[in-house]
Protein backbone atom coordinates (compact mmCIF):
# COMPACT_ATOMS: atom_id res chain seq x y z
CA UNK A 1 0.00 0.00 0.00
CA UNK A 2 1.12 3.53 -0.44
CA UNK A 3 1.06 6.35 2.02
CA UNK A 4 -0.41 9.64 0.89
CA UNK A 5 0.25 13.06 2.33
CA UNK A 6 -2.94 13.11 4.38
CA UNK A 7 -2.07 9.79 6.00
CA UNK A 8 1.39 11.04 6.86
CA UNK A 9 -0.01 14.20 8.42
CA UNK A 10 -2.36 12.06 10.49
CA UNK A 11 0.47 9.81 11.71
CA UNK A 12 2.54 12.90 12.53
CA UNK A 13 -0.36 14.18 14.61
CA UNK A 14 -0.47 10.86 16.48
CA UNK A 15 3.30 11.08 17.07
CA UNK A 16 3.01 14.72 18.22
CA UNK A 17 5.45 15.96 15.63
CA UNK A 18 4.56 19.02 13.59
CA UNK A 19 5.54 18.55 9.96
CA UNK A 20 6.72 21.42 7.88
CA UNK A 21 4.44 21.68 4.83
CA UNK A 22 7.48 22.18 2.59
CA UNK A 23 8.90 18.85 3.69
CA UNK A 24 5.79 16.70 3.27
CA UNK A 25 6.58 15.75 -0.33
CA UNK A 26 10.08 14.47 0.34
CA UNK A 27 8.89 12.74 3.51
CA UNK A 28 6.15 11.00 1.55
CA UNK A 29 8.65 9.83 -1.03
CA UNK A 30 11.10 8.52 1.59
CA UNK A 31 8.47 6.74 3.66
CA UNK A 32 6.96 5.09 0.59
CA UNK A 33 10.33 3.75 -0.50
CA UNK A 34 10.90 2.40 3.02
CA UNK A 35 7.48 0.75 3.11
CA UNK A 36 8.02 -0.78 -0.29
CA UNK A 37 11.17 -2.34 1.14
CA UNK A 38 9.41 -3.46 4.33
CA UNK A 39 6.56 -5.07 2.42
CA UNK A 40 8.86 -7.79 1.11
CA UNK A 41 7.69 -9.59 4.24
CA UNK A 42 4.37 -10.25 2.55
CA UNK A 43 6.11 -12.90 0.43
CA UNK A 44 6.29 -15.09 3.52
CA UNK A 45 3.46 -17.19 4.83
CA UNK A 46 3.53 -16.84 8.59
CA UNK A 47 0.09 -18.18 9.46
CA UNK A 48 1.42 -20.92 11.69
CA UNK A 49 4.28 -18.97 13.27
CA UNK A 50 4.14 -17.77 16.86
CA UNK A 51 5.23 -14.13 17.19
CA UNK A 52 8.49 -13.65 19.02
CA UNK A 53 7.89 -11.29 21.91
CA UNK A 54 11.08 -11.84 23.89
CA UNK A 55 14.46 -13.08 22.83
CA UNK A 56 15.31 -14.29 26.33
CA UNK A 57 14.52 -17.74 27.63
CA UNK A 58 13.55 -16.23 30.94
CA UNK A 59 10.42 -14.57 32.13
CA UNK A 60 10.67 -11.09 33.54
CA UNK A 61 11.67 -11.00 37.17
CA UNK A 62 9.40 -9.52 39.77
CA UNK A 63 10.68 -7.77 42.83
CA UNK A 64 9.26 -7.13 46.25
CA UNK A 65 6.85 -4.25 46.26
CA UNK A 66 9.06 -2.02 48.34
CA UNK A 67 10.28 1.51 47.87
CA UNK A 68 13.94 1.35 46.85
CA UNK A 69 14.32 4.94 45.82
CA UNK A 70 12.84 8.28 46.64
CA UNK A 71 13.46 11.70 48.13
CA UNK A 72 15.11 12.77 44.90
CA UNK A 73 12.71 15.51 43.87
CA UNK A 74 15.49 18.00 43.31
CA UNK A 75 17.37 15.61 41.05
CA UNK A 76 14.25 14.89 39.04
CA UNK A 77 13.38 18.55 38.60
CA UNK A 78 16.95 19.59 37.86
CA UNK A 79 16.73 19.16 34.08
CA UNK A 80 13.28 20.61 33.62
CA UNK A 81 13.15 23.45 31.08
CA UNK A 82 10.55 25.23 33.21
CA UNK A 83 9.70 24.61 36.84
CA UNK A 84 8.09 26.34 39.76
CA UNK A 85 9.51 25.17 43.07
CA UNK A 86 8.19 21.61 43.27
CA UNK A 87 6.39 21.41 39.94
CA UNK A 88 6.97 21.06 36.23
CA UNK A 89 5.40 23.99 34.43
CA UNK A 90 3.51 23.51 31.15
CA UNK A 91 1.40 25.86 29.01
CA UNK A 92 -2.08 26.41 30.41
CA UNK A 93 -4.39 23.41 29.74
CA UNK A 94 -7.54 24.41 31.63
CA UNK A 95 -9.26 27.72 31.06
Amino acid at each position, binding site marked *: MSLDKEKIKHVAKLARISVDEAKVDSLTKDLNSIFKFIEQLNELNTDKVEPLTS*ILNQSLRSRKDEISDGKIREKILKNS*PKKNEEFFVVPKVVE
Partner: protein
Amino acid sequence: MSNITNQSLSEILESIKSKKISSLELTQAYIKNIENAKKLNAFVTTTFDQALENAKKFDNKPNNEHLLSGIPLAVKDLFCTENVKTTAGSNILNNFVPSYESTVTKNLWNNGAFLLGKLNCDEFAMGSSNETSFFGNVINPIGDHLVPGGSSGGSSSALAADLTPATIGTDTGGSIRQPASFTGTVGLKPTYGLCSRWGIVAFASSLDQAGPMTKTVNDCSIMLEAMSGFDEKDSTSINKKKESYSKNLKDNIKGLKIGIPKEYRVDNMPKEIDELWEKGKKILKDLGAQLIDISLPHTKYALPTYYIVAPAEASSNLARYDGVRYGYRSQKGKDLIEMYENTRSEGFGDEVKRRILIGTYVLSSGYYDAYYLKAQKVRQLIKKDFDDSFTKVDAILTPSTPSSAFKIGEKTNDPVSMYLNDIFTVPVNLAGLPALSLPAGLDKQGYPLGLQLIGKALDEQKILNIGYAFEKNCGYKNEIKKWWS
Protein backbone atom coordinates in the same frame (compact mmCIF):
# COMPACT_ATOMS: atom_id res chain seq x y z
CA MET B 1 56.77 7.58 25.78
CA SER B 2 55.52 9.65 22.86
CA ASN B 3 53.86 6.66 21.26
CA ILE B 4 52.17 5.12 24.29
CA THR B 5 48.81 5.94 22.72
CA ASN B 6 49.61 3.72 19.72
CA GLN B 7 49.59 0.71 21.95
CA SER B 8 46.85 -1.70 22.81
CA LEU B 9 44.93 -1.42 26.07
CA SER B 10 46.63 -4.55 27.45
CA GLU B 11 50.09 -3.13 26.70
CA ILE B 12 49.14 0.17 28.33
CA LEU B 13 47.85 -1.66 31.40
CA GLU B 14 51.21 -3.43 31.63
CA SER B 15 53.05 -0.08 31.44
CA ILE B 16 50.88 1.37 34.20
CA LYS B 17 51.38 -1.66 36.39
CA SER B 18 55.15 -1.68 35.97
CA LYS B 19 55.22 2.11 36.51
CA LYS B 20 56.83 2.70 33.13
CA ILE B 21 54.25 5.44 32.77
CA SER B 22 51.97 7.16 35.25
CA SER B 23 48.25 7.45 34.79
CA LEU B 24 48.72 11.24 34.62
CA GLU B 25 51.27 11.01 31.79
CA LEU B 26 48.97 8.62 29.95
CA THR B 27 45.98 10.91 30.38
CA GLN B 28 47.99 13.93 29.26
CA ALA B 29 49.10 12.04 26.15
CA TYR B 30 45.48 11.31 25.19
CA ILE B 31 44.41 14.88 25.92
CA LYS B 32 47.12 16.12 23.60
CA ASN B 33 45.97 13.75 20.87
CA ILE B 34 42.35 14.82 21.33
CA GLU B 35 43.23 18.50 21.14
CA ASN B 36 45.09 17.85 17.90
CA ALA B 37 42.23 15.89 16.38
CA LYS B 38 39.37 18.40 16.48
CA LYS B 39 38.93 17.95 12.72
CA LEU B 40 37.62 14.44 13.28
CA ASN B 41 34.73 15.82 15.40
CA ALA B 42 34.74 12.62 17.46
CA PHE B 43 33.96 14.28 20.80
CA VAL B 44 30.79 16.04 21.91
CA THR B 45 32.09 16.73 25.43
CA THR B 46 35.52 16.40 27.02
CA THR B 47 36.10 15.98 30.76
CA PHE B 48 39.81 16.72 30.91
CA ASP B 49 39.92 18.38 34.34
CA GLN B 50 38.03 15.56 35.92
CA ALA B 51 40.25 12.99 34.12
CA LEU B 52 43.48 14.67 35.24
CA GLU B 53 42.17 14.78 38.79
CA ASN B 54 41.34 11.06 38.67
CA ALA B 55 44.72 10.21 37.16
CA LYS B 56 46.53 12.08 39.96
CA LYS B 57 44.41 10.33 42.53
CA PHE B 58 45.38 6.98 41.02
CA ASP B 59 49.09 7.82 40.90
CA ASN B 60 49.08 8.89 44.56
CA LYS B 61 47.67 5.58 45.61
CA PRO B 62 47.99 3.07 42.76
CA ASN B 63 45.73 0.06 42.99
CA ASN B 64 46.51 -2.34 40.17
CA GLU B 65 44.09 -5.03 41.19
CA HIS B 66 41.37 -3.90 38.83
CA LEU B 67 40.87 -4.78 35.19
CA LEU B 68 41.27 -1.16 34.04
CA SER B 69 43.46 0.39 36.72
CA GLY B 70 44.42 3.98 35.91
CA ILE B 71 42.93 3.99 32.40
CA PRO B 72 41.19 7.06 30.92
CA LEU B 73 38.29 6.11 28.62
CA ALA B 74 36.02 8.05 26.31
CA VAL B 75 32.54 6.56 25.83
CA LYS B 76 29.68 6.96 23.36
CA ASP B 77 27.41 9.85 24.29
CA LEU B 78 24.48 7.48 24.66
CA PHE B 79 25.58 6.36 28.13
CA CYS B 80 24.28 8.56 30.91
CA THR B 81 27.12 9.93 33.00
CA GLU B 82 26.44 11.56 36.34
CA ASN B 83 26.83 15.34 36.19
CA VAL B 84 28.28 15.16 32.67
CA LYS B 85 26.08 16.25 29.75
CA THR B 86 24.62 13.32 27.81
CA THR B 87 23.14 14.22 24.43
CA ALA B 88 22.58 10.99 22.41
CA GLY B 89 23.68 13.16 19.47
CA SER B 90 20.39 15.05 19.62
CA ASN B 91 19.31 18.65 19.95
CA ILE B 92 16.49 17.49 22.19
CA LEU B 93 19.03 16.39 24.85
CA ASN B 94 21.55 19.16 24.18
CA ASN B 95 21.21 20.46 27.74
CA PHE B 96 20.60 17.19 29.57
CA VAL B 97 22.84 16.52 32.57
CA PRO B 98 21.97 13.16 34.15
CA SER B 99 21.88 12.87 37.92
CA TYR B 100 22.79 9.18 37.63
CA GLU B 101 25.37 6.93 36.02
CA SER B 102 24.59 4.09 33.59
CA THR B 103 25.35 0.65 35.01
CA VAL B 104 27.80 -0.18 32.24
CA THR B 105 29.91 2.96 32.74
CA LYS B 106 29.70 2.54 36.50
CA ASN B 107 31.12 -0.97 36.02
CA LEU B 108 34.04 0.52 34.08
CA TRP B 109 34.75 3.09 36.81
CA ASN B 110 34.47 0.40 39.49
CA ASN B 111 37.16 -1.44 37.55
CA GLY B 112 39.58 1.47 37.87
CA ALA B 113 38.91 3.45 34.68
CA PHE B 114 37.77 7.08 34.53
CA LEU B 115 36.00 9.29 32.00
CA LEU B 116 37.93 11.21 29.35
CA GLY B 117 34.96 12.47 27.35
CA LYS B 118 31.75 11.68 25.49
CA LEU B 119 31.85 10.54 21.89
CA ASN B 120 29.71 11.71 19.02
CA CYS B 121 27.15 9.31 17.53
CA ASP B 122 24.19 9.25 15.20
CA GLU B 123 21.15 10.90 16.76
CA PHE B 124 19.61 8.38 19.18
CA ALA B 125 21.92 5.82 17.54
CA MET B 126 19.80 5.95 14.38
CA GLY B 127 22.19 5.88 11.47
CA SER B 128 25.01 3.98 9.81
CA SER B 129 27.40 6.83 9.06
CA ASN B 130 27.35 9.26 11.99
CA GLU B 131 25.82 11.84 9.66
CA THR B 132 22.56 12.20 11.62
CA SER B 133 24.22 13.69 14.72
CA PHE B 134 23.07 17.17 15.75
CA PHE B 135 26.74 17.86 16.47
CA GLY B 136 27.87 17.26 12.91
CA ASN B 137 29.32 14.28 11.15
CA VAL B 138 32.41 12.48 12.39
CA ILE B 139 35.34 11.86 10.07
CA ASN B 140 37.01 8.51 9.62
CA PRO B 141 40.76 8.70 10.38
CA ILE B 142 41.27 6.41 7.38
CA GLY B 143 40.46 9.35 5.05
CA ASP B 144 39.10 12.88 5.39
CA HIS B 145 36.21 12.23 2.97
CA LEU B 146 35.03 8.99 4.60
CA VAL B 147 32.34 8.23 7.18
CA PRO B 148 33.48 6.33 10.29
CA GLY B 149 30.38 4.14 10.23
CA GLY B 150 27.57 4.46 12.70
CA SER B 151 25.94 4.81 14.93
CA SER B 152 29.03 4.47 17.19
CA GLY B 153 31.06 6.59 14.74
CA GLY B 154 32.68 8.87 17.31
CA SER B 155 33.77 5.75 19.16
CA SER B 156 35.32 4.06 16.12
CA SER B 157 36.99 7.26 14.95
CA ALA B 158 38.43 8.09 18.39
CA LEU B 159 39.72 4.56 18.87
CA ALA B 160 41.38 4.30 15.45
CA ALA B 161 42.92 7.78 15.86
CA ASP B 162 44.44 6.94 19.29
CA LEU B 163 42.17 9.33 21.19
CA THR B 164 41.15 6.66 23.71
CA PRO B 165 42.79 3.31 24.53
CA ALA B 166 39.47 1.48 24.14
CA THR B 167 35.83 2.49 24.13
CA ILE B 168 32.27 1.31 24.34
CA GLY B 169 29.40 1.66 21.93
CA THR B 170 25.88 0.35 21.54
CA ASP B 171 24.61 -1.96 18.83
CA THR B 172 20.93 -2.12 17.84
CA GLY B 173 21.41 -3.26 14.24
CA GLY B 174 25.18 -3.15 13.73
CA SER B 175 26.17 0.12 15.39
CA ILE B 176 29.31 -1.36 16.98
CA ARG B 177 30.34 -3.86 14.32
CA GLN B 178 29.90 -1.73 11.19
CA PRO B 179 31.97 1.24 12.50
CA ALA B 180 34.60 -1.20 13.77
CA SER B 181 34.76 -2.71 10.30
CA PHE B 182 35.05 0.75 8.68
CA THR B 183 38.00 1.74 10.88
CA GLY B 184 39.97 -1.49 11.12
CA THR B 185 39.14 -2.08 14.78
CA VAL B 186 37.55 -4.84 16.86
CA GLY B 187 33.91 -4.54 17.93
CA LEU B 188 31.72 -6.93 19.87
CA LYS B 189 27.96 -6.98 20.23
CA PRO B 190 27.31 -9.19 23.27
CA THR B 191 24.36 -11.50 23.83
CA TYR B 192 21.18 -9.57 24.56
CA GLY B 193 21.02 -9.25 28.35
CA LEU B 194 24.74 -9.65 29.10
CA CYS B 195 25.38 -5.92 29.58
CA SER B 196 22.84 -3.84 31.45
CA ARG B 197 20.77 -1.37 29.45
CA TRP B 198 20.08 0.73 32.55
CA GLY B 199 21.08 4.36 32.01
CA ILE B 200 21.62 4.01 28.27
CA VAL B 201 19.44 6.34 26.20
CA ALA B 202 16.94 3.86 24.75
CA PHE B 203 16.45 3.31 21.02
CA ALA B 204 14.87 -0.15 20.49
CA SER B 205 14.77 -1.96 23.80
CA SER B 206 14.48 -5.53 22.52
CA LEU B 207 17.57 -5.05 20.31
CA ASP B 208 19.86 -2.53 22.09
CA GLN B 209 23.03 -3.92 23.60
CA ALA B 210 26.22 -2.20 24.76
CA GLY B 211 29.60 -3.63 23.88
CA PRO B 212 33.35 -2.97 23.64
CA MET B 213 35.30 -1.45 20.75
CA THR B 214 39.04 -2.05 20.94
CA LYS B 215 42.28 -2.42 19.02
CA THR B 216 42.78 -6.11 19.76
CA VAL B 217 40.72 -9.16 20.68
CA ASN B 218 42.46 -9.43 24.04
CA ASP B 219 41.49 -5.81 24.79
CA CYS B 220 37.95 -6.68 23.79
CA SER B 221 37.81 -9.52 26.31
CA ILE B 222 39.14 -7.25 29.09
CA MET B 223 36.55 -4.58 28.33
CA LEU B 224 33.69 -7.08 28.09
CA GLU B 225 34.66 -8.56 31.42
CA ALA B 226 34.70 -5.09 32.99
CA MET B 227 31.40 -3.82 31.59
CA SER B 228 29.15 -6.90 31.68
CA GLY B 229 27.26 -8.44 34.57
CA PHE B 230 23.84 -8.87 36.10
CA ASP B 231 21.93 -5.74 37.01
CA GLU B 232 18.72 -5.72 39.02
CA LYS B 233 17.76 -2.43 37.43
CA ASP B 234 17.45 -3.94 33.93
CA SER B 235 14.50 -6.35 33.76
CA THR B 236 16.10 -8.17 30.81
CA SER B 237 19.53 -8.55 32.41
CA ILE B 238 20.71 -12.17 32.52
CA ASN B 239 21.58 -13.42 35.99
CA LYS B 240 24.64 -15.59 35.58
CA LYS B 241 28.13 -15.97 37.01
CA LYS B 242 30.66 -13.48 35.70
CA GLU B 243 33.22 -14.91 33.30
CA SER B 244 36.93 -14.14 33.07
CA TYR B 245 37.05 -13.69 29.32
CA SER B 246 40.63 -12.39 29.24
CA LYS B 247 42.06 -15.03 31.53
CA ASN B 248 40.35 -17.77 29.56
CA LEU B 249 41.37 -16.46 26.15
CA LYS B 250 42.87 -19.33 24.11
CA ASP B 251 44.06 -19.48 20.54
CA ASN B 252 43.52 -23.20 20.02
CA ILE B 253 40.49 -23.63 17.79
CA LYS B 254 41.27 -27.09 16.45
CA GLY B 255 38.17 -29.12 15.67
CA LEU B 256 35.73 -26.22 16.02
CA LYS B 257 32.98 -26.21 13.43
CA ILE B 258 32.52 -22.94 11.58
CA GLY B 259 29.33 -22.40 9.61
CA ILE B 260 29.41 -20.57 6.28
CA PRO B 261 25.91 -19.31 5.43
CA LYS B 262 25.24 -19.20 1.70
CA GLU B 263 22.68 -16.41 2.04
CA TYR B 264 25.40 -13.92 3.00
CA ARG B 265 26.68 -13.87 -0.56
CA VAL B 266 24.43 -11.06 -1.74
CA ASP B 267 23.86 -9.60 -5.21
CA ASN B 268 26.27 -6.87 -6.25
CA MET B 269 28.62 -7.62 -3.38
CA PRO B 270 32.09 -6.32 -4.31
CA LYS B 271 34.50 -9.06 -5.31
CA GLU B 272 36.86 -7.92 -2.58
CA ILE B 273 34.38 -8.80 0.14
CA ASP B 274 34.06 -12.28 -1.31
CA GLU B 275 37.84 -12.63 -1.45
CA LEU B 276 38.14 -11.45 2.13
CA TRP B 277 35.61 -14.05 3.22
CA GLU B 278 37.61 -16.73 1.38
CA LYS B 279 40.76 -15.53 3.12
CA GLY B 280 39.03 -15.76 6.49
CA LYS B 281 37.82 -19.27 5.78
CA LYS B 282 41.33 -20.36 4.81
CA ILE B 283 42.87 -18.93 7.98
CA LEU B 284 40.40 -20.76 10.20
CA LYS B 285 40.77 -23.97 8.20
CA ASP B 286 44.56 -23.83 8.45
CA LEU B 287 44.18 -23.48 12.22
CA GLY B 288 42.30 -26.76 12.31
CA ALA B 289 38.71 -25.58 12.26
CA GLN B 290 36.19 -27.40 10.12
CA LEU B 291 34.15 -25.37 7.63
CA ILE B 292 30.53 -26.38 7.21
CA ASP B 293 28.09 -24.97 4.66
CA ILE B 294 24.90 -23.88 6.32
CA SER B 295 21.72 -22.09 5.33
CA LEU B 296 19.96 -19.22 7.11
CA PRO B 297 17.04 -19.04 4.69
CA HIS B 298 15.29 -15.97 6.12
CA THR B 299 18.33 -13.71 6.03
CA LYS B 300 16.92 -11.42 3.34
CA TYR B 301 13.90 -10.68 5.51
CA ALA B 302 15.98 -9.52 8.47
CA LEU B 303 16.31 -5.89 7.37
CA PRO B 304 12.61 -5.40 6.52
CA THR B 305 11.75 -6.99 9.88
CA TYR B 306 14.21 -4.72 11.64
CA TYR B 307 12.69 -1.63 10.00
CA ILE B 308 9.38 -2.48 11.61
CA VAL B 309 10.54 -3.66 15.04
CA ALA B 310 13.18 -0.98 15.67
CA PRO B 311 11.09 2.07 14.66
CA ALA B 312 8.08 0.71 16.55
CA GLU B 313 10.09 0.42 19.74
CA ALA B 314 11.75 3.76 19.05
CA SER B 315 8.43 5.54 18.63
CA SER B 316 7.40 4.27 22.07
CA ASN B 317 10.74 5.02 23.71
CA LEU B 318 11.01 8.49 22.24
CA ALA B 319 7.50 9.44 23.32
CA ARG B 320 9.13 10.56 26.59
CA TYR B 321 10.70 13.62 24.94
CA ASP B 322 7.95 16.08 25.59
CA GLY B 323 9.80 19.23 26.60
CA VAL B 324 8.38 19.05 30.12
CA ARG B 325 10.66 17.02 32.37
CA TYR B 326 14.02 17.40 30.68
CA GLY B 327 15.57 18.35 27.39
CA TYR B 328 14.75 20.99 24.82
CA ARG B 329 11.45 22.87 24.85
CA SER B 330 10.15 24.95 21.97
CA GLN B 331 9.03 28.47 22.81
CA LYS B 332 6.42 28.31 20.07
CA GLY B 333 2.84 27.09 20.31
CA LYS B 334 -0.31 28.42 21.93
CA ASP B 335 -1.22 25.36 24.00
CA LEU B 336 0.22 22.16 25.44
CA ILE B 337 -0.29 20.04 22.31
CA GLU B 338 1.38 22.62 20.08
CA MET B 339 4.23 22.88 22.56
CA TYR B 340 4.73 19.09 22.29
CA GLU B 341 4.53 19.14 18.51
CA ASN B 342 6.95 22.02 18.10
CA THR B 343 9.37 20.70 20.71
CA ARG B 344 9.58 17.34 18.98
CA SER B 345 9.73 18.83 15.51
CA GLU B 346 12.56 21.23 16.43
CA GLY B 347 14.30 18.84 18.80
CA PHE B 348 14.55 15.76 16.58
CA GLY B 349 16.44 15.50 13.30
CA ASP B 350 15.02 14.16 10.03
CA GLU B 351 16.09 10.52 10.39
CA VAL B 352 14.73 10.27 13.93
CA LYS B 353 11.43 11.83 12.85
CA ARG B 354 11.23 9.44 9.91
CA ARG B 355 11.64 6.46 12.20
CA ILE B 356 9.16 7.75 14.77
CA LEU B 357 6.60 8.14 11.97
CA ILE B 358 7.28 4.62 10.65
CA GLY B 359 6.97 3.24 14.16
CA THR B 360 3.80 5.16 14.97
CA TYR B 361 2.24 4.01 11.72
CA VAL B 362 3.05 0.30 12.11
CA LEU B 363 1.66 0.35 15.65
CA SER B 364 -1.43 2.34 14.79
CA SER B 365 -4.92 0.92 14.89
CA GLY B 366 -5.69 -1.19 11.84
CA TYR B 367 -2.09 -1.71 10.82
CA TYR B 368 -0.63 -3.49 13.84
CA ASP B 369 -1.30 -7.03 12.54
CA ALA B 370 -0.09 -6.30 9.03
CA TYR B 371 3.22 -4.88 10.16
CA TYR B 372 4.25 -5.30 13.77
CA LEU B 373 2.74 -8.73 14.38
CA LYS B 374 4.01 -9.89 10.99
CA ALA B 375 7.51 -8.69 11.89
CA GLN B 376 7.42 -10.51 15.22
CA LYS B 377 6.56 -13.70 13.38
CA VAL B 378 9.35 -13.30 10.87
CA ARG B 379 11.69 -12.52 13.74
CA GLN B 380 10.79 -15.94 15.14
CA LEU B 381 11.75 -17.54 11.80
CA ILE B 382 15.07 -15.68 11.76
CA LYS B 383 15.86 -16.82 15.28
CA LYS B 384 14.92 -20.39 14.35
CA ASP B 385 17.34 -20.31 11.40
CA PHE B 386 20.15 -19.60 13.86
CA ASP B 387 18.91 -22.13 16.43
CA ASP B 388 18.88 -24.84 13.73
CA SER B 389 22.36 -23.94 12.50
CA PHE B 390 23.84 -23.91 15.97
CA THR B 391 22.96 -27.56 16.42
CA LYS B 392 25.58 -28.20 13.72
CA VAL B 393 28.24 -25.53 14.21
CA ASP B 394 30.11 -23.70 16.99
CA ALA B 395 30.22 -20.32 15.27
CA ILE B 396 29.34 -18.65 11.97
CA LEU B 397 31.71 -16.64 9.78
CA THR B 398 30.39 -13.85 7.52
CA PRO B 399 31.56 -10.49 6.18
CA SER B 400 30.75 -7.63 8.60
CA THR B 401 29.53 -5.21 5.94
CA PRO B 402 28.76 -5.30 2.22
CA SER B 403 31.31 -2.53 1.51
CA SER B 404 34.18 -0.56 3.02
CA ALA B 405 33.70 2.96 4.42
CA PHE B 406 31.71 5.11 2.00
CA LYS B 407 32.00 8.80 1.28
CA ILE B 408 30.42 11.50 3.40
CA GLY B 409 27.12 12.45 1.77
CA GLU B 410 27.08 9.41 -0.53
CA LYS B 411 23.97 7.78 0.95
CA THR B 412 22.21 10.57 2.81
CA ASN B 413 19.53 11.09 0.15
CA ASP B 414 18.45 7.49 -0.02
CA PRO B 415 17.44 6.00 3.35
CA VAL B 416 17.03 2.45 2.00
CA SER B 417 20.55 2.37 0.53
CA MET B 418 21.85 3.54 3.93
CA TYR B 419 19.84 0.81 5.69
CA LEU B 420 21.26 -1.87 3.37
CA ASN B 421 24.67 -1.28 4.93
CA ASP B 422 23.48 -3.22 7.97
CA ILE B 423 22.39 -6.26 5.99
CA PHE B 424 24.93 -8.63 7.62
CA THR B 425 24.72 -7.24 11.14
CA VAL B 426 20.97 -6.88 11.73
CA PRO B 427 20.01 -10.61 11.85
CA VAL B 428 22.19 -11.07 14.95
CA ASN B 429 20.32 -8.36 16.88
CA LEU B 430 16.96 -9.86 15.96
CA ALA B 431 18.15 -13.22 17.31
CA GLY B 432 19.83 -11.71 20.40
CA LEU B 433 23.17 -13.40 19.64
CA PRO B 434 26.76 -12.26 20.25
CA ALA B 435 28.88 -11.27 17.24
CA LEU B 436 32.42 -10.02 16.87
CA SER B 437 33.71 -7.90 13.99
CA LEU B 438 37.41 -8.33 13.27
CA PRO B 439 39.65 -6.31 10.99
CA ALA B 440 40.65 -8.72 8.25
CA GLY B 441 42.08 -6.87 5.29
CA LEU B 442 42.01 -3.83 3.01
CA ASP B 443 40.14 -3.21 -0.19
CA LYS B 444 41.88 -1.92 -3.30
CA GLN B 445 41.53 1.67 -2.10
CA GLY B 446 43.32 0.73 1.11
CA TYR B 447 40.21 0.95 3.31
CA PRO B 448 39.68 -1.63 6.08
CA LEU B 449 37.25 -4.52 5.76
CA GLY B 450 35.94 -6.71 8.54
CA LEU B 451 34.75 -10.24 9.07
CA GLN B 452 32.08 -11.19 11.55
CA LEU B 453 31.98 -14.19 13.89
CA ILE B 454 28.52 -15.01 15.24
CA GLY B 455 28.18 -17.19 18.33
CA LYS B 456 25.49 -18.99 20.27
CA ALA B 457 23.79 -17.03 23.03
CA LEU B 458 26.25 -16.44 25.91
CA ASP B 459 29.08 -18.09 23.96
CA GLU B 460 31.22 -14.91 23.87
CA GLN B 461 34.29 -16.81 25.04
CA LYS B 462 34.26 -19.04 21.99
CA ILE B 463 33.99 -16.28 19.41
CA LEU B 464 36.66 -14.31 21.29
CA ASN B 465 38.92 -17.36 21.15
CA ILE B 466 38.34 -17.84 17.45
CA GLY B 467 38.91 -14.12 16.93
CA TYR B 468 42.11 -14.27 18.97
CA ALA B 469 43.47 -17.13 16.86
CA PHE B 470 42.35 -15.38 13.68
CA GLU B 471 44.01 -12.10 14.67
CA LYS B 472 47.36 -13.81 15.30
CA ASN B 473 47.31 -15.39 11.87
CA CYS B 474 45.67 -12.71 9.76
CA GLY B 475 48.56 -10.26 9.69
CA TYR B 476 46.26 -7.23 9.62
CA LYS B 477 47.84 -4.05 10.89
CA ASN B 478 46.13 -0.68 11.07
CA GLU B 479 48.60 1.91 9.86
CA ILE B 480 46.84 5.23 9.88
CA LYS B 481 48.67 8.35 8.82
CA LYS B 482 47.81 11.14 11.22
CA TRP B 483 46.83 13.66 8.55
CA TRP B 484 44.62 15.64 10.91
CA SER B 485 47.22 16.89 13.38
